[in-house]
C-alpha cells in the first residue's frame, strides 16, 4: 500500500517527493523507487521469480496493546512485533544467539564493552537507513527516564553507547553483565526508526522497524494486518505477501476457525490444552508441542502470617503432587517443574520432589499447626488458573490445609502481588532464553518481580555473582541459588507450560521456537 502511494507521489512530481523525504528521511524517495523495479517484477503476472500472493492468518489471544517495543509489556505484542522489527541478535531453535541486525560482536575481556558490527544496507519501512546512530538512538530512548520504558530496567547496566563508525557501535556497561546479549534477543534488542519516533512519539499505532513485514492497518479488538516488506535485507524473504492477525479470545472458537480454515496458525495461548489430541487427529492440521521457557507456580507472601512460617510453606509444597496436577489439567501441554529453568535450559537440573504427605504433616507439626490451617489463594480469571487452583485445593485438603480460592481480575492480581497484599498467589512467567531473566528479579531483595517479599543477603550475593561469572562456574552458582530456594520455598514451582503450535498442513516453513515467538519470514503456503 505504502509503495503504491509513493510511486504515485513520485509520478506526481518532484515537489511531492521532496515533501515525503522531509518526513520520511533523506533517502526515502529514491531508495524506494530504486528497488521498486524488483517490486514491479514481483507484481507483474508471469514474471520469473514472482512470489505468490500468500496471506497467512494467525490467531491472537488478545488485541496487542502496544506495538512499540520500548513501551510494550504484553506477550501478544511480542508475537506481532517479532515480524515488524528486527533485533540486534536473535535466537535459533536451540536457543543459541545468532546474528540479525548485528553481524558479529565482541565482548571485552573484562566483560564491560560489547562491540557490534552492524549489517549494511538495511532500511526501515519508512525508507530511512539503519546504522550505528540508530542503535545509539534506540538505547538512549529506552534509558530516557521520561519515557518510563519497561526496557529501562532490563538494560539499566548500560552506561554509554558509542558510535565508532557508521556500522560499528560500542555499548559500555557499568559492570560485567553476562545476560546482556540474551536480553537483546527480545524487545530491548528491537530497533525502531528514529524518524518515526520523531514524527509520532509513541509507535504503538505506527510501528516502524526493519523487519520482514510492515504494518498496514489495524482494527481495534479485531485484527492487525501486515504486508510484505519488499526491501527486506534477506534475499527472497519474506515468502508470504500478507499477514493478518485475528484477535480470537476464546480458545474453542480459535480451534473452530483453524478447523474450518479461516485461520492458518494458532499459537500456544489460543490452543486449549485438552483439545490437542483432537487436533492431532485432524489430517488437515499439523500440531507441534515443545518445551517452553516459562514457568508457573505459587507465590507465598513471606512477610505475613501464615506464610512467614517457613514450615507451612514447605508443608504446602510437600502436599502437592505436581505430576498428577499436570496430567489432569494439561496432559501433554506442560511438564512438572521444580525450578525456573525449563528442560530446554542448560541450568535445568532435573530435580523433582515427589508428593509426601507424611512429610507435609511433619512440616505442619514443626510449623505449630499439626491440624492444618487455612489461607487465601489468589488467582486470575480464566479456566486454566481455576483448574490448577481446584486441584491444588483438593490435594492440600488431604492434610487439613484449607485453600480458599479468590478469583481476581488479572490487573488486580498483579497489583495485589506487587504490593504484597496476598497470602498466596498463583502466577507465573512467560520465560526468556536468558536464565537471568527467569530468576534474578523474582528472588532478589526488592526485585521488580519479587512477589514473595523474600529477602536473603546470601541469595542476593549469589544472584549478583551469577551475572558476572560464566560457564561451569555460573552453573555452580545457580546450583547454590536453587538449594537456598528449595530450602526456604518463597515460591512453589509447579509446571512448565509447553509451546503449542497448530497450523493448517499447507503452511510450510513454520518452526516452533522455544521462546514461543512465531517468526513468519520463512513461512508460506504450498
Amino acid at each position: 500500500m505504502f509503495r503504491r502511494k509513493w510511486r504515485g507521489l513520485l509520478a506526481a512530481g518532484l515537489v511531492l517527493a521532496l515533501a515525503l523525504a522531509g518526513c520520511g528521511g533523506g533517502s526515502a524517495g529514491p531508495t524506494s523507487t530504486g528497488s521498486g523495479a524488483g517490486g514491479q517484477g514481483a507484481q507483474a503476472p508471469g514474471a520469473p521469480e514472482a512470489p505468490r500472493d500468500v496471506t497467512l492468518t494467525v490467531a491472537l489471544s488478545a488485541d496487542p496493546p502496544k506495538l512499540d517495543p520500548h513501551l510494550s509489556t504484553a506477550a501478544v505484542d511480542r508475537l506481532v512485533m517479532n515480524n515488524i522489527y528486527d533485533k540486534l541478535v536473535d535466537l535459533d531453535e536451540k536457543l543459541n544467539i545468532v546474528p540479525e541486525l548485528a553481524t558479529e560482536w565482541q565482548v571485552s575481556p573484562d566483560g564491560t564493552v560489547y562491540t557490534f558490527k552492524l549489517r549494511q544496507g538495511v532500511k526501515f519501512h519508512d525508507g530511512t537507513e539503519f546504522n550505528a546512530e540508530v542503535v545509539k538512538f534506540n538505547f538512549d530512548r529506552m534509558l530516557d527516564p521520561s519515557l518510563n520504558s519497561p526496557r529501562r530496567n532490563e538494560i539499566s547496566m548500560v552506561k554509554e553507547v558509542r558510535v565508532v563508525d557508521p556500522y560499528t557501535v560500542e555499548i559500555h556497561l557499568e559492570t560485567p553483565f553476562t545476560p546482556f546479549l540474551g536480553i537483546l534477543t527480545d524487545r530491548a534488542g528491537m530497533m525502531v526508526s528514529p524518524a518515526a519516533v520523531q514524527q509520532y512519539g509513541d509507535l504503538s499505532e505506527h510501528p516502524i522497524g526493519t523487519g520482514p513485514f510492515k504494518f498496514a492497518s489495524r482494527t481495534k479488538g479485531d485484527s492487525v494486518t501486515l504486508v510484505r516488506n519488499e526491501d527486506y535485507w534477506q534475499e527472497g524473504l519474506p515468502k508470504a505477501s500478507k499477514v493478518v492477525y485475528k484477535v480470537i479470545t476464546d480458545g474453542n472458537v480459535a480451534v473452530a476457525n483453524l478447523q474450518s480454515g479461516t485461520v492458518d496458525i494458532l499459537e500456544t495461548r489460543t490452543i486449549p490444552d485438552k483439545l490437542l489430541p483432537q487436533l492431532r487427529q485432524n489430517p488437515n492440521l499439523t500440531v507441534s508441542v515443545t518445551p517452553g521457557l516459562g514457568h508457573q507456580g505459587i507465590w507465598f507472601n513471606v512477610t505475613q502470617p501464615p506464610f512467614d512460617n517457613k514450615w507451612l510453606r514447605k508443608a504446602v509444597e510437600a502436599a502437592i503432587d505436581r505430576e498428577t496436577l499436570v496430567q489432569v489439567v494439561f496432559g501433554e501441554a506442560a511438564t512438572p517443574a521444580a525450578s525456573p529453568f525449563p528442560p530446554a535450559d542448560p541450568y535445568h537440573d532435573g530435580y523433582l520432589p515427589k508428593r509426601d504427605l507424611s512429610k507435609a504433616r511433619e512440616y505442619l507439626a514443626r510449623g505449630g499447626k499439626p491440624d492444618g490451617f487455612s489461607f487465601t489463594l489468589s488467582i486470575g480469571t480464566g479456566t486454566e488458573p481455576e483448574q490448577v487452583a481446584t486441584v491444588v485445593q483438593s490435594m492440600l485438603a488431604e492434610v487439613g490445609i484449607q485453600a480458599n480460592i479468590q478469583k481476581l481480575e488479572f490487573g488486580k492480581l498483579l497489583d495485589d502481588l506487587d504490593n504484597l497484599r496476598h497470602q498466596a498467589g498463583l502466577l507465573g512467567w512467560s520465560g526468556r532464553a536468558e536464565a537471568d531473566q527467569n530468576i534474578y528479579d523474582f528472588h532478589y531483595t526488592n526485585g521488580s518481580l519479587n512477589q514473595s517479599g523474600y529477602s536473603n543477603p546470601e541469595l542476593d550475593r549469589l544472584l549478583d555473582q551469577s551475572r558476572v561469572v560464566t560457564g561451569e562456574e555460573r552453573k555452580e552458582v545457580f546450583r547454590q541459588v536453587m538449594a537456598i530456594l528449595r530450602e526456604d520455598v518463597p515460591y512453589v514451582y509447579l509446571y512448565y507450560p509447553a509451546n503449542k503450535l497448530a497450523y493448517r498442513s499447507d503452511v510450510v516453513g513454520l518452526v516452533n521456537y522455544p521462546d514461543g515467538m512465531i517468526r513468519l519470514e520463512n513461512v508460506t503456503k504450498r
Partner: protein
Amino acid sequence: MLAESWRRFRRSRSGVFGLAVVTALVLVALLAPWLTPCDPLQPDYAAVMQPPSRAHPLGTDNFGRDVLARTLYGARLSLRAGVTSVAVALALGLPIGLVSGYYRGFWDEYVIMRVVDALQAFPFLILALAVTAALGQGLNEAMIAIGIGFTPGFIRIVRSAVLEVRTREYVLAARSLGAGDGRILLRHVLPNALGPIIVQTTLSVAAAIIAEAGLSYLGLGAQPPEPSWGSDLRAAQGFLTLAPWMAIWPGLAIFLSVLGFNMLGDGLRDALDPRLRGD
C-alpha cells in the same frame, strides 16, 4: 376461598406439573446424600472425564468428580440461592411497597418510585454484577446481589396491588370504624394483595435460579469446589467436544427447575388471581 383456589389450581395442568417438578427438586435437595454414594467434592484423578458407566451413571468431570453427585447436590445450592435471594427481595420490597402504596404522597411519587425506575433501567445482570463487584465474589454475595436486583420489581408489584385495594369498601369500612393504619395494612390490605405477590415470588425464584447460574457461570457466584450448576456448566464449556455429559446434566437441571417454578407460578396465578390470565 382457599378451597376454591386449590380447585382452580388443580385444574391448571401446568401448575400441577410445576408443583410436581418443584416438589421433586426439593426432595432431591434434601435427600441428595441418600440418592448417590459419591461425594460431589471428591476428585479421582485416575478417572478424569470418564463417559457414563456403572460406577458413574452420568460420567465424571475434568477432575474425576461424579457428575450425578454434583448435579444432585447442585439442587441444594440452586434452591438455596433461589429462595434466599427472593427472600431478600421480599424482605426489602414488601414493606417499602406496602408503605409507599398505602400512604402515597411525595415520598411515594417522587422518591421511591423514581429510584425504582432508575434501578429498573439497569439490565438486571448489570445491577447484580455491580453489586458483586462491591461485595466480592461468593454465593452469599451473589444471593444478596440477586435479591437487591429483584427488589424494584417487588416494590412495584406490591405497591400496585396495594393501590388497587386501598380504596376498596372494606378498607374504608375498617377506617370508619376507627382502625389504625397498621391494623388496616396488615389485616385488610396485605391479605387481599397477597395473590400477585405470591405469583411474583414464585416466578422470581425461577429467575433467581437462572441469575445464580448466570453469575456462577461468570465466575462470580459459587466458588470452587462447590457444586453449582452454573459454574459446572462453565467448566464444561471447555470440554464440550470431549465430555458433553459434563454440560448436559447441569444444563438440563437448570432448565427443568426453572420450568418447574415458572409453571408453578402460572398455576398459582390462575388460582389466586384469575383476572391476570393471559387467555
